[in-house]
């Protein structure tokens, strides 16, 4: 197990550098970061040259990348061009997005898995058919449409929730945004659980458990669920990174000042340091989540042995 973890950590290194380099190059293509500093007017050449020197933008891209990465490892994510530390922005943005992600994952687990178990056990039943149809509809409506419509109905028409989330973003205001963020994954979790349960339902070990005379709920929770949830856990784990990166749309609709908001602002203002910094952290989250999922595999499924 220890050797496996080390090997996985080593494998993460090239992916980490590749992904950050890729985003670094993309941001450089994005345009002249200096142009954003002089407002709407054109910078005069002398100021531009001085600013470029100050931010090290006169050096070749690969050198900028190395300097940047060197700084990141000492905890210095640079300064946004408005003078605020990028780490400061992160400290205010990440807790909000993490809360939003927790709400989303909670919905995925509770609603997704329960619906999946229900439909998996009752395959062909009208409940199954209607839930399946519902998941297809949810998958095909893009998140921003779901968000806008829920905001219109719950926030504006019926007044159940506030249409915009306040800047502290406490959990109770994040319920609907979290549901919106989770919606598509929720549908996938339902379908995945359903398929998995339906497949395992006829497995020998379930028959054995039934034959032993175990009560039905014990057969389902201890035997059927534990085996069926392995692919679901994998999906939810890899989804953490996707949710945090995809929160950009939900955060924009509900005016949540999280990671997506800061990234959107950073991109609009061509704020290279902010964009690269936030994406770097998101990439780390994605990689670590994937690693944890792989390790969790061994816990859930004792047949899997990591040499």
């Amino acid at each position: 197990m220890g050797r496996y973890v080390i090997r996985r950590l080593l494998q993460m290194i090239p992916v980490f550098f590749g992904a950050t380099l890729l985003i670094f190059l993309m941001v450089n293509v994005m345009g002249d970061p200096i142009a954003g500093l002089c407002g709407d007017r054109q910078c005069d050449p002398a100021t531009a040259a001085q600013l470029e020197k100050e931010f090290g933008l006169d050096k070749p891209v690969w050198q900028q990348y190395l300097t940047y990465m060197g700084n990141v490892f000492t905890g210095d994510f640079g300064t946004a061009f408005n003078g605020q530390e990028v780490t400061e922005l992160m400290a205010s943005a990440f807790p909000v997005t993490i809360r939003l992600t927790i709400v989303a994952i909670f919905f995925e687990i509770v609603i997704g898995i329960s619906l999946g178990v229900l439909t998996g056990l009752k395959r062909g039943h009208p409940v199954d058919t209607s839930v399946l149809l519902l998941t297809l509809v949810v998958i095909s409506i893009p998140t921003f449409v779901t968000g806008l419509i829920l905001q219109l109905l719950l926030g504006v028409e019926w007044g159940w929730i506030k249409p915009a989330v306040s800047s502290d973003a406490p959990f109770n205001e994040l319920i609907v945004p979290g549901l919106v963020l989770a919606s598509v994954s929720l549908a996938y979790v339902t379908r995945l659980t359903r398929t998995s349960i339906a497949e395992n339902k006829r497995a020998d070990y379930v028959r054995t458990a039934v034959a032993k005379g175990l009560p039905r709920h014990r057969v389902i929770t201890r035997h059927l669920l534990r085996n069926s949830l392995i692919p679901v856990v994998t999906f939810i784990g890899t989804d953490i990174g996707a949710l945090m990166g995809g929160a950009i749309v939900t955060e924009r609709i509900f005016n949540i000042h999280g990671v997506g908001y800061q990234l959107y602002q950073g991109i609009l203002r061509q704020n290279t340091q902010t964009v690269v910094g936030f994406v770097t952290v998101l990439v780390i989250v994605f990689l670590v989540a994937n690693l944890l999922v792989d390790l969790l595999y061994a816990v859930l499924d004792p047949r899997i042995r990591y040499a």
Partner: protein
Amino acid sequence: MPEQLPEPLESFEEGQAIAPTGAGGASDLATAEGETLEKTPGGPLGTGPDKKPRSLWSDAWHDLRRNPIFIISGLIIVFLVIISIWPQLIASGNPLDCDLSKAQEGPQPGHPFGFNGQGCDVYTRTVYGARASVQVGVFATLGVTILGSILGGLAGFYGGAWDGVLSRITDVFFAIPVVLGGLVLLSVVSSNTVWPVIGFMVLLGWPQLSRIARGSVITAKQNDYVQAARALGASNNRMLLRHIAPNALAPVIVVATIALGTYISLEATLSFLGVGLKPPTVSWGIDISSAAPYVRNAPQMLLWPSGALAITVLAFIMLGDAVRDALDPKLR
């Protein structure tokens, strides 16, 4: 006892479950028997007794033609393609012909969906919006499929160093959130055409297909008939094109069909964020985005393009589902 009722139908998988199949009596017979049962009535191809065993493709086609999900989604898609080529067939107006004095007004005779914030006819704009979505979906999928299956297929076939490098590259691409990449790359583009969006999707989408193609080529490579071809002295090219490609194609096609729906959805999302397509291009994403401020007074601005978008994506996803059910022999 957890199971008292007999399972309704073994082949009752995912998408198919929505439609009443009416074949409830045919319960879960062994696959082989189920096949022969299906074959006999009517003679599926109308050519009398089948002498030649059907290939995977004709078998799949045979299944698809009887799948109501396939027929419905297929009809929707054909309709979409037709109106994206000739929108004037069902919408006589001009989507850019707007009258500010009618802004946000509700439905009127001749304008069944009402007007948007600029006083443009929502019906006409919804019809014309199909073109951008279909173009992006089709061309992005073509690009991604061609690039992904060539890169992934070659990596799977030859293995070795190139395979290792490609796998790491796909890992890198998977680590970058797609919407984010779109925001960064497309925020500088000021083109009014669909091509930058398509280019972006090909750039960030190929790893998904290449991973699928690689896996299915590796599986196909180990088959006995490929080994036999190799033993008979077939060249690499011949093995790839004659033996491996036709057998490795099925999963690629399935994933590509479903991906087509997600590309349409992604285009709308990017347009909503202001970096996808740009006016005067008519696109559902742009219209939904511009509807947001008026949502209270003119909900029709939001609902019609959203509905059209959802139906389009749904059609492609259902088509992909149906094709998967037909092509994956394990589910039969």
